[in-house]
């Protein structure tokens, strides 16, 4: 997704001389064209994320549109106070872009993963969160973020090419229609959910992808649950404060009754060993096979 992101931001930057890109010393073999286009408005802020966030807020105060970029935990957990006090409290227009949501950084280990970014960022005022599941969605998302005049966090992950025909982008959208089970997926893990259900007979699993917070649930999704009475929420994020919690809350508020609510989520570091993304996903029951088994049991 990062290549797509860089390509789209470059297009935006050509049209808008208020855009500034600040990076926390990351982006080699990625941001060179942006650096050339932006000139001084491309800033390598160094390995100094606290300053990067607050300096970006200062630039937004003057009327610029800074985008700040680093590995996801370094633009969320590490600088949460700067984001809260200096950006969100004032509603300053800073875009935070985190690379590697969930277990994306794989064998780089827990310090480079972020499993609670949605939870943390959603507690802040004025902010919007984007959790794309597909590279194809980035065009619409970056364009939307550029137009919006308030803080936002974009959770980038490594997308994988899926043999799947995509419906057009919206914050919460249906990817396939089914009558037996409603599956609601947070961004990145869609690339394990689709392979898990691809061979299921048609019209069985109703799959929805969530790419934006605060969560706005389309009426069709509520109708789906009324019909199937069974919900499975899948996310590469911890249980607390993630999609499952937000979604369940909305169902309760809307008095939507269901028989089963199954929540598959990231369980952290069970074995304390290092491995690939799939190694961690398997430990949490989020790998393709584990997801497939759960869905089979529910339909």
């Amino acid at each position, binding site marked *: 997704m990062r290549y797509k992101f860089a390509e789209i931001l470059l297009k935006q930057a050509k049209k808008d001389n208020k855009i500034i890109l600040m990076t926390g010393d990351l982006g080699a073999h990625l941001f060179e064209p942006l650096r050339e286009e932006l000139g001084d408005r491309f800033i390598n802020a160094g390995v100094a994320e606290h*300053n990067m966030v607050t300096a970006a807020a*200062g*630039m937004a105060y003057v009327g610029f549109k800074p985008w700040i970029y680093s590995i996801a935990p370094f633009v969320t957990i590490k600088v949460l106070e700067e984001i809260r*006090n*200096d950006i969100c409290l004032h509603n300053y227009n800073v875009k935070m872009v985190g690379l590697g949501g969930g277990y994306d950084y794989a064998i780089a280990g827990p310090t480079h993963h972020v499993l609670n970014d949605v939870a943390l960022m959603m507690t802040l005022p004025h902010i919007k969160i984007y959790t794309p599941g597909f590279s194809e969605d980035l065009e619409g998302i970056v364009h939307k973020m550029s137009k919006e005049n308030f803080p936002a966090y974009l959770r980038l992950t490594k997308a994988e090419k899926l043999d799947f025909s995509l419906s057009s982008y919206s914050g919460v959208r249906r990817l396939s229609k089914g009558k037996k089970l409603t599956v609601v997926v947070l961004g990145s893990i869609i690339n394990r959910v689709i392979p898990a259900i691809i061979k299921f007979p048609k019209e069985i699993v109703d799959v929805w992808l969530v790419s934006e917070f605060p969560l706005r649930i389309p009426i069709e999704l509520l109708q789906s649950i009324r019909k199937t009475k069974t919900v499975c929420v899948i996310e590469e994020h911890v249980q607390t404060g993630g999609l499952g919690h937000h979604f369940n809350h909305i169902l309760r508020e809307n008095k939507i009754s269901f028989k089963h609510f199954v929540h598959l989520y990231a369980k952290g570091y069970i074995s304390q060993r290092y491995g690939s993304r799939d190694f961690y996903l398997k430990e949490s029951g989020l790998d393709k096979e584990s997801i497939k088994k759960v869905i089979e049991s529910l339909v």
Partner: protein
Amino acid sequence: MSVKAKNQLRIDLREKIIKLASKTPTAHPHIGSCMSCIDILIQTLIYEMKPQDKFILSKGHASLALYVVLNYLKKISNKDLDTYFSEGTEFGIHTPSTRPNDIPVATGSLGHGLSFAVGIAKAFKFLKATNSTYAVVSGALRRVYCLMSDGECNEGAVWEAAQFASSHKLSNLTALIDRNRLQAFGKTKDVLGDAASVSKWKAFGFNVIVCDGHNLSQIEGAFSRMKKIKSSKPNMIICNTIRGKGIRAIEGKVESNYTAMVGESYKQALEDIKRL
């Protein structure tokens, strides 16, 4: 304004601070810190800054000193200022987010102000590069001023901002330190050492000038010396101060920030400041 009149202003604004602080029986207004930096604020905001410049009070706990100066400048009305420390007020112990023109960022958590100031300074430079009339007023590039405390320089983010300021040649940034050599629970030298030392700030690429932070002529002199320096470096004025300055019982004492303006302390404080 004459020297005598300026000195009277130092007394009058101190009186206002003490009276407002007496609205609470608590020590939360940080009277010691306010007395320590009020002279720096007077010289900077009232006499030095142009209307197009920006000021960040990074040591947000001394907000009351900023409020009375903004009140003097008619940026905060008497009516609004009188709500200080009341339920539902806009003006609490730390600076608010609701006055962006005069208070660009709500501070209180230390170590944020200098980064915010470097962001503004850099943005002004961007605008200058595009020949924006917003960035350059009457031929002068808009400036940013940021006041920190010396204890605040314990914060790592201050030094991140310092590196950014010097590497980006933010000559339109003037940082100031209220160097009273005390922090919340001890002397700076006994906690983490003197983070407001000239050598540290010079090593981080700043033009550094030291002055007496209670002598308006000296602060004024520091600003004019700074303006004469032809360099692309950011500027630092280290103001030597005394916490609680003007209130004898607490001058230079750690307790100065834990003293409520009530009863005898209040009466004596109002008497003491007349001798400034």
